[in-house]
């Protein structure tokens, strides 16, 4: 094993993975339970000549990483629900202006200040719909540190591939729990770099004209192409327009570049799905509980399986439909009042077979909670 094993918090894993992916600029504002990301960045970045900025709030944090992305850097900010809410306007700007960046939301109990030091998965829909206006978004998540490492790297890769902000939905449990993680060698996980335009100086460069393969090569601010970036509807040079055709084209481009690549963006793990009568669907910290239940029931011979979603947006509806095709019933395990469960219901053929096992009192959902719901579904009472 050439890899290095570390016993660290999820928040630290995230930092390690971001650096692995090529991040060299981070700006943030402290908030529980994400602060260790900023703290670790503050320590690590100067070592590699990167920049750490503590800004005056979350709004300026996300603004400044967008600025830094435009000069050609890989960038990230990290926050939790209250800060994520504040970032929504600027998140929409990054979507509209097609600026690659990664936003980490280490979820805690909401709404509002809620439960700062307790885990939750209450921001899943916010990640999709938090900013105003139509748009598409990519959101990834992970349940254990090894996957968190790869999903963080993927977040950067997808941000570059699709020229878009990517949201990494962590949670207090994943963020604060320590477990072993193998830090891969450089090269082990592929890294997608900034695609820069090959248009030479003096030739008209179109920052907003997709290539044939759909990608949009960028040119660094400070480089040889001077173009415009705006949050208004704009033409292929980045200048504002109110031409209905251009507007129609742009909004469809923004949606399609993500939604039409849902299959490429989809990330998941599956456990024992081949012959599963009962399919558990879960993600992030709750998937740990779900997997615990599945493993222990399998040992007793029960036909349980788990579909662990690692990409939540665009929602992998096809995958869910396919994996649930033969399920007698489907149990979504999540730590909120039911968010992914709605998407699963939309995805499958028989939504009435979809159940929710959740917990929203600040405590981590237990195998007993899940087993209790299963008893109920089977009509065996509690």
């Amino acid at each position: 094993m050439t890899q290095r094993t570390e016993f660290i918090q999820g928040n630290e894993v995230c930092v390690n993975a971001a650096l692995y992916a090529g991040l060299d600029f981070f700006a943030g504002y402290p908030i529980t339970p994400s602060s260790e990301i900023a703290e670790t960045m503050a320590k690590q970045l100067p070592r590699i000549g990167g920049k750490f900025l503590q800004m005056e709030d979350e709004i300026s944090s996300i603004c400044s990483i967008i600025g830094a992305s435009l000069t050609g850097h890989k960038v990230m900010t990290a926050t939790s629900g209250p800060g994520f809410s504040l970032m929504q306007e600027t998140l929409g700007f990054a979507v509209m202006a097609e600026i690659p960046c990664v936003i980490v939301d280490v979820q805690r109990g909401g709404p509002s200040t809620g439960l700062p030091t307790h885990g939750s998965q209450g921001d899943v829909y916010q990640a999709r719909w938090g900013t105003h206006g139509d748009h598409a978004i990519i959101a990834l998540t992970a349940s254990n540190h090894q996957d968190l490492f790869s999903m963080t790297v993927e977040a950067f890769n997808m941000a570059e591939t699709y020229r878009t902000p990517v949201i990494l939905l962590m949670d207090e449990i994943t963020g604060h729990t320590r477990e072993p993680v193998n830090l891969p060698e450089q090269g082990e996980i592929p890294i997608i770099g900034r695609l820069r335009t090959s248009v030479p100086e003096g030739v008209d460069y179109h920052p907003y004209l997709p290539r044939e393969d759909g990608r949009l090569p960028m040119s660094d601010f400070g480089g040889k192409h001077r173009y415009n970036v705006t949050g208004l509807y704009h033409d292929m040079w980045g200048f504002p327009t109110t031409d209905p055709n251009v507007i129609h084209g742009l909004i469809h481009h923004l949606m399609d570049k993500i939604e039409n690549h849902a299959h490429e963006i989809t990330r998941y793990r599956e456990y024992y799905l081949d012959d599963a009568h009962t399919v558990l669907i879960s993600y992030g910290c709750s998937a740990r509980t779900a997997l615990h239940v599945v493993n222990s029931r399998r040992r007793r011979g029960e036909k349980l399986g788990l579909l662990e979603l690692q990409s939540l947006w665009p929602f992998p509806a096809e995958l869910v439909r396919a994996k649930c095709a033969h399920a007698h019933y489907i149990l979504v395990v999540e730590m909120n009042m039911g968010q992914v469960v709605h998407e699963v219901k939309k995805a499958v053929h028989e939504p009435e077979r979809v159940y929710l096992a959740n917990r929203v009192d600040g405590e981590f959902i237990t195998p007993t909670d899940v087993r209790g719901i299963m008893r109920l579904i089977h009509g065996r009472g509690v």
Partner: protein
Amino acid sequence: MAIDKYMRERFFPHIWCPGCGHGTILNNMLRAVDELQLNQNEMVMVSGIGCSSRISGYVDFHSLHTLHGRALAFATGIKMSQPNLSVICPMGDGDALAIGGNHFIHACRRNMDITAIVMNNRIYGMTGGQYSPLSGSGITATTAPQKTIDREFDITSLSLASGATFVARTTAYHYREITKYIKEALQHPGFSVVEILSQCPTHFGRRNKLGDAPEMLKLYKQNTTRIGSEAKQNNPELIERGIFRQEIAPEYCAEYAELINRVQQG
């Protein structure tokens, strides 16, 4: 004109109203850039949202037209990540000091080498003439049909108190000063604020019966004076023009570079 090369001529005539002071600021800002013979590929203009903020579309620099109030926050990321770039941040008074006030004072405090230009027309031009934190009291605006009761900020005092290391003020009438102060600001190795009083005949002038653009410009001549002038002593109501501070203090990016050095040296 020598400044042509800094302009995106295809977007002219620009969208500003006849007689809008913002145009005069653009005009004389470009002359400052020209006189310094700055390399356009190393110039970034970052603006927010407002009439003033449309300025970034007209200059042939790297241009970033951001969100209302956030120009300095974006600019901070640009400068920090690529300190060799020259970053200019023109902002409206509302942009800079209503919604953007926090970024403004923190940018002053940090002292990154960014040039902030406040195009102060004492009104929200873009949205149709609501009062701004620079309107001051006794002003008629769409949201103050019975005149404002709000007191105004003094941009220069606020900049000084927040830590800006270069602070100057002039008006759209004093075009030579515009060029001069922006030149000084661009050369200043730290955060600079240049406040420029700029007439909005459409909303501020008309509603407050100040006449057309030339008349408003004459008022700038009458109501202002050089810092520390005798006129000011005789008439304390006069607004002072000039450089209020020009001081060297640790620049943020330079300090960070040193921090990196220190860490890497072990």
